[in-house]
């Protein structure tokens, strides 16, 4: 039971660590600038005009 418990706890923690690593890498390569650029002008597609 203890092994099973540890395994079930390790999976989300490993996933979380990989995800955070991926996010940090995304920021390093500047993907957040693409998001910023898109989010700070009125998105015509979103509101149904473009």
């Amino acid at each position, binding site marked *: *039971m*203890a092994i*099973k*418990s540890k395994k*079930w*706890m390790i*999976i*989300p*923690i490993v*996933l*979380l660590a*990989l*995800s*955070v*690593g*991926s*996010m*940090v*890498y*995304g*920021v390093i*390569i500047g*993907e*957040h*600038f*693409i*998001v*910023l*650029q*898109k*989010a*700070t*002008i*009125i*998105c015509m*597609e*979103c*509101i*149904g*005009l*473009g």
Partner: protein
Amino acid sequence: MALASKRLKTHDKRRSLVQLLTAIISNAYIIGFIEGKIFQGGTKSFCVPGLNCYACPGALGACPIGSLQAVLGSRGKSFSFYIIGYLAAVGAASGRFICGWACPFGYLQDLLYKIPLLKKIKKRRLPGEKYLEKFRYVLLVVFVILMPLYVVDFLGQGSPAFCAYICPSGTLSGLLLMIPNEGLRASLGFLFAWKNLILAFVVISSVIIYRPFCRYMCPLGAVYGLFNPVALYRFKIDEQKCTKCKICQVTCKLDIPVYITPNSSACIRCGDCIAACPHGAIIHGIDIFKTQESEQIEPSYPL
């Protein structure tokens, strides 16, 4: 039973308060609503966890689904480490907890469902529910991933297809923007009419069915739902306490048999089942790990 009912009411009030606060915090740029313009500060490079369109006049952050399409649609990009990492991080931490507690569009549907005008379809699943539930994955793959990647213009820029043709959250934001903005009102066309039709369908069906958009259409819920069985925040049934009375399923507005599938990908983690369970048999959060260990240290025996 009266105690469970009281607990459920208190729980509902608490969840509504959290949802309201989240919606206010996510859309706190009041000037935008008055002047018909959007916030342009640096916080918009960060995503909010729920479905909240960045074209909303009050939005302080970016929508993760819109952002994913924006990055995938950029020339030379075929993967987004930033957004996929973000979605996986939220999913691995909490699964669909965000859907139940912190999504402004989910909150809107909750409010609509509270309107006591029409007879509610809450205990029955719709005909073809099994297939309808899969529709959100189709929308995720086709409109959020494939179309921005492969349907490109002559500059190599992909279109945010889900935002453009489906998303009712964006349409609602558009309406809020257009009220004070005459320039935008002058540009209305067929696409706007189509998107308003979808918005009207979602709004009307939300009064009758609990959260139709979240159940059948939301690509964000589809992603988070995949993490429900492996997230840090999870449900577990204490087999020694559970009597299989099915009160959890009867209480669940999504009709999930929680006692059988506590980590269903359809579960939005609203927690109504936990509040309703008269036996306290649904363990949740990181407590499930504590229980498993305590079971080993202090085994309990039937009397």
